[in-house]
């Protein structure tokens, strides 16, 4: 438990913009990622608020059809590529991985900086694409529409391609670090569970992301020279694009959620003052999730024209993911049993995570069953489902991580009372936004529609009001976090009495 590095030193050794942008220090790179993903979150959030506001009436309020399509595409692309994927692994992973292992840095510091620069460069292309005529394909870029739309698909796709490489290189770096940089005594089964989850995430990043890269490249090739493999008019198969895309994008869902699960394992041990129940099972379940996640991508293609046989196999395999996920949930709850629980803000986010992720997970099983999915596909039920996993899961994990490691990263304490209020506002607001979406989805409200049947208006109104509550919670959080940097009290070295090395 001895960690000799003065924890604020890395802010003070050097000053100025250049000292940050060309730094090789994993902590500074982590902080820069954190700032970037927070900007991404803010941007994506603004689009979400605009979309919700537009949907408050069944007819057009202030967005034209095409603008609406562009807005939900940008909301998706920004949230997925600029926020969720890099959020926990790149920001907290970079900052914490070497500290938790007891290593001096990640294995390849220069590669690490290069990944960050690639990330910025990719983000630049995304921003550029907005000004060149924002994409209106949805974040999935489905062919053949993406081949023919006259919006700036190439710029956006190229941005995602570059950010994919940033993600791959981060994965390479983390796996190499975990394998070779562990000091003697830090055996595989003494590593904090957060590191296990990062390890599983990195496997996915290295093995799945390249397929996204080549898919996007092929889409560009299709637009530039009509190679014909995705274009039915040329004898190609648009469903093949969906296969390629989801071979990456289903595992990507676990690139997003696994690190959040790792954070939860740390939170529950610290705030219940107990050792984790079933350490090895949680560790293995991370790897299990990573492996199974490669076998289920076809559940996104149930109504796309995939063969019945393939759909059946994919549906069956999809249920398997529930097992390792459930193992984690059971073990966390068993850890809480008879623990002396200290309900600080990060722990509240843990509770929110378990609750919301369970709802997200169970509705996932509903969507994974073939017959139900045929009815629910592309309705708001799906929208609500993945927001419960992505937002209820990943965002809660991310916010839990911010509150938990804030004192470590910035050396200041935040206002605990305001933090609790913000937490309640966010969780309640979130449920008000998305729970009605389950209901209207089950009743048949299709997703991505700009104009809808007035029958659904009441749900949309509730949902929109919820988005305002959520926004107030996030703004309050931003307020007290900024306040804490400006004049918060100095944080003790181990404010929560945690047992890990950092």
């Amino acid at each position, binding site marked *: 438990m001895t960690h000799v590095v003065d924890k604020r030193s890395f802010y003070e050794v050097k000053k100025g913009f250049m000292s940050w942008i060309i730094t090789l220090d994993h902590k500074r790179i982590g902080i820069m990622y954190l700032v970037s993903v927070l900007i991404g979150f803010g941007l994506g959030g603004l689009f979400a608020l605009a979309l919700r506001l537009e949907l408050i009436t069944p007819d057009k309020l202030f967005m034209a059809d095409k603008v609406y399509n562009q807005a939900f595409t940008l909301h998706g692309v920004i949230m997925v590529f600029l926020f969720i994927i890099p959020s926990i692994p790149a920001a907290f992973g970079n900052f914490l991985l070497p500290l938790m292992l007891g290593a001096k840095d990640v294995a390849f510091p220069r590669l690490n900086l290069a990944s960050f620069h690639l990330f910025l460069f990719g983000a630049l292309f995304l921003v550029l694409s907005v000004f060149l005529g924002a994409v209106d394909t949805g974040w999935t870029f489905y062919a053949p529409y993406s081949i023919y739309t006259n919006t700036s698909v190439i710029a956006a796709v190229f941005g995602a391609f570059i950010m994919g490489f940033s993600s791959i290189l981060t994965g390479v770096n983390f796996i190499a670090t975990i394998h070779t940089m562990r000091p003697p005594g830090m055996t595989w089964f003494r590593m904090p569970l957060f590191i296990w989850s990062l390890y599983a995430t990195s496997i996915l990043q290295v093995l799945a992301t390249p397929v996204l890269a*080549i898919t996007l490249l092929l889409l560009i090739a299709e637009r530039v020279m009509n190679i014909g*493999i995705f274009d039915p008019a040329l004898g190609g198969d648009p469903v093949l694009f969906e296969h390629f895309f989801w071979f990456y994008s289903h595992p990507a869902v676990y690139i997003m959620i696994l690190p959040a699960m790792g954070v939860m394992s740390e939170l529950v041990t610290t705030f219940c003052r107990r050792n984790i129940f079933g350490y090895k099972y949680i560790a293995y379940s991370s790897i299990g999730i990573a492996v199974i996640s490669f076998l289920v991508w076809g559940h996104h293609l149930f109504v796309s024209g995939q063969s019945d046989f393939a759909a059946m196999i994919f549906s069956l395999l999809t249920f398997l993911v529930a097992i390792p996920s459930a193992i984690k949930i059971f073990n966390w709850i068993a850890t809480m049993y008879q623990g002396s629980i200290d309900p600080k803000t990060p722990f509240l986010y843990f509770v929110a995570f378990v609750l919301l992720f369970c709802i997200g997970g169970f509705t996932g099983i509903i969507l994974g069953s073939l017959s139900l999915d045929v009815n629910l596909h592309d309705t708001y039920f799906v929208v609500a489902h993945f927001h419960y996993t992505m937002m209820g899961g990943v965002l809660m994990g991310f916010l839990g991580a911010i509150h938990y490691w804030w004192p470590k990263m910035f050396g200041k304490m935040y206002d605990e009372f305001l933090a609790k209020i913000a937490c309640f506002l966010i969780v309640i607001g979130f449920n008000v936004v998305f729970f009605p979406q389950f209901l209207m989805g089950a009743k048949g409200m299709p997703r991505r529609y700009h104009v809808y049947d007035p029958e659904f208006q009441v749900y949309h109104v509730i949902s929109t009001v919820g988005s305002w509550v959520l926004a107030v919670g996030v703004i309050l959080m931003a307020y007290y976090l900024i306040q804490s940097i400006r004049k918060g009290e100095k944080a003790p070295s181990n404010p929560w009495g945690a047992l890990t090395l950092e």
Partner: protein
Amino acid sequence: MKQLTKDGFVKHEVAHHFESADQEFQTAKLGMWLFLGQELLFFSALFVAYGVFRFLYPAMFIEAHHHLSVNMGFLNTIVLLISSFTMAMAIRSAQVSNKKHTFVFLLITLVCAGMFMVVKYMEYAEKFHHGLLPARWFFGEGTSEVLHIFFGLYFCLTGLHGIHVLIGMGLIIWLLIKTQRGEFYSEYYTPVEMVGLYWHLVDLVWIFLFPLLYLVG
């Protein structure tokens, strides 16, 4: 000021966050292998697309592969195999601190890579001439209406592979400069080893491309 070893090589300093040169070497190698794994998956989608369209249009594939020159493909396969051999020999020479041999073997590898690209250029020129191109520019003649799909795939596969060869050539030039400066010797030859692994992967991909595109009828 850089230190020199007693044989006149530039002494390698182990980066601050590693305990030993061996740890540094093994880490770099592991990282490189992970990168190669990534490369395999990167190419895999193209092979899947190949499999899918071969299944859907078997007759078209048989027709299309007659438009490719087996001799050229064969020549390029041999050239790449030889370059892989010289690359392995360059690494070995660096391992035994033989600066001159390292340089010569790297140079032969570079020449082989150049030859590969020249042959590729000739093949491409022929395809352009006959209009055997992706659909946008396709004006070739054939009985199948979807012949352009084969050439779409052909240009994606060989083009992407060709880009890898070009990148490899750049890396080998970088190695040549460093070798000339005397930076590689028995205690430190990590970059040679890394580029070598990359180069062998480029060879590996071609080993599959050659029979799949040129031969299977």
